[in-house]
């Protein structure tokens, strides 16, 4: 068994007006990775390339240590995918979905599927068109988890859900990675959710990977220095990642907040949230 469940190396896709530019990151087994970035940053393009829904221009994608194109069928039989909208025939019932999915996935487990339907309180014989959005997402999870999937890929799957359903979804993800051979790649706009569950954060901006780090490393070390112009001028520019000038002060994102607090005792140094880090990269001025 390979240590990394997903390896992406220099993945590129050129649309002319948008370029996914040499994206690289590793997803180890047993972890949840959050893929973040603004709209159009390249999150869905990356996921579509991984799933071979679109053809990459260059780069390497290994899933379970195997090439995602030459071993596509074998890989996809161990992959669970949940998109942001319902793709199941809405005139079907969950049991009918199970009937044809059992003919598609070689590892389909009816017992597990029925258990998930019960756990998620989904009526087995009700048409999907009568389901709420939350129920549809739960059904997608039931399908994704009922064929011995080892890697879950979620593309904005929680967008538009209320906080209670989102919390249920996050619990499902945590349960899923209790088996340390499993991993989750989840792209989402809702950073607060990822802060709760993600072990790794990969940040994409304008088609490039800005960073791919352990979440704890980001949360424990990154900080925001709030200071006036006089202190800002004395800051070591090599330590500044990005800054924003506000009406009466500067806000500066630094990689090592403890060092900044020690070096600039007159400045106010606070921990940076993932959302703030993302905002600094996108909207701040980069050094």
């Amino acid at each position: 068994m390979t240590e990394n469940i997903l390896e992406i190396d220099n993945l590129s896709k050129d649309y002319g007006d948008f370029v996914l530019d040499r994206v690289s990151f590793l997803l180890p087994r047993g972890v949840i990775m959050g893929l973040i970035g603004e709209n159009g940053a390249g999150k869905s393009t990356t996921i579509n390339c991984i799933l071979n829904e679109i053809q990459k221009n260059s780069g390497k994608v290994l899933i379970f240590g195997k090439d995602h194109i030459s071993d596509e069928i074998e890989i996809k039989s161990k992959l669970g995918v949940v998109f942001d909208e319902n793709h199941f025939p809405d005139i079907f019932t969950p049991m009918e979905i199970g009937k044809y999915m059992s003919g598609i996935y070689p590892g389909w487990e009816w017992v597990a599927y029925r258990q998930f339907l019960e756990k998620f309180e989904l009526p087995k014989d009700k048409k999907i068109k009568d389901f709420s959005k939350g129920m549809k997402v739960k059904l997608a999870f039931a399908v994704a988890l009922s064929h011995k999937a080892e890697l879950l890929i979620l593309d904005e799957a929680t967008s538009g859900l209320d906080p209670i359903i989102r919390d249920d979804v996050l619990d499902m993800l945590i349960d899923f990675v209790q088996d340390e051979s499993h991993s989750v790649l989840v792209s989402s706009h809702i950073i607060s959710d990822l802060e709760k569950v993600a072990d790794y954060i990969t940040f994409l901006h304008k088609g490039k990977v800005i960073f791919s780090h352990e979440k704890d490393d980001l949360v424990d070390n990154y900080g925001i220095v709030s200071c006036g112009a006089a202190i800002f001028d004395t800051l070591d520019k090599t330590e500044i990642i990005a800054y924003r000038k506000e009406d009466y002060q500067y806000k500066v994102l630094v990689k090592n907040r403890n060092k900044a607090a020690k070096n600039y005792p007159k400045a106010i140094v606070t921990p940076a949230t993932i959302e703030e880090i993302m905002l600094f990269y996108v909207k701040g001025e980069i050094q």
Partner: protein
Amino acid sequence: MKGLLTKDLLTIQKKYGLKRLVMDIAIIIALMIVLEGTGAIYISFLLIPLEVASMVISLTTCDEQWKWGKYSISLPVSKTQIVKSRYVFAGSMALIGLSVALLVNAISYFCFPAYRFGFYLFVAIASFCVTLIFLSFTLPSNYSLGVNAGFAAMIILVVLLVVLGIWSKLTDNAIMWFIVEHFETSMGIAFVSTILLFALSYALSTTFFKRKYV
């Protein structure tokens, strides 16, 4: 592929259902009673091919509505298998259409024996070929330009078929001279050509489907 076929079958069952089946049988019986001997010809050349083609178009409409294409690519089936399963399903529907045509023509022969039995048999086989021709044009149109293109292709084929029928009637089958003079050869050529056309259509559809996801 078994799962994909099951999905298509369940979709048709739910979309068409018992009501549609009863309606189709009623139309067939009505046409046979009203038109007597010629009823079988209209059923074989128009009703059956149209019904099969519209079923396949209906499947494409549902797929587009559910954005099934995007999801299906995340499943452990290749793009070729996705198209192949649709062709297998369409081909199976055409075979069911052939069975219906054989039944209708046999009943017509016994109830309204206007022609020899061989003629009714020929009409049933020709109906199968017309159905395959309909599918050969509608399926790639669906895959290249969407469901509306498939529907347009079906309408164009119906118009061409009607025009051909009227023209043939007006010229007292003069335009069919080759078929009349070389009946067995022309039937062989027509059957083989139809199968080849269906195979070519499959290759085209596969290319169009793969191109959609580049």
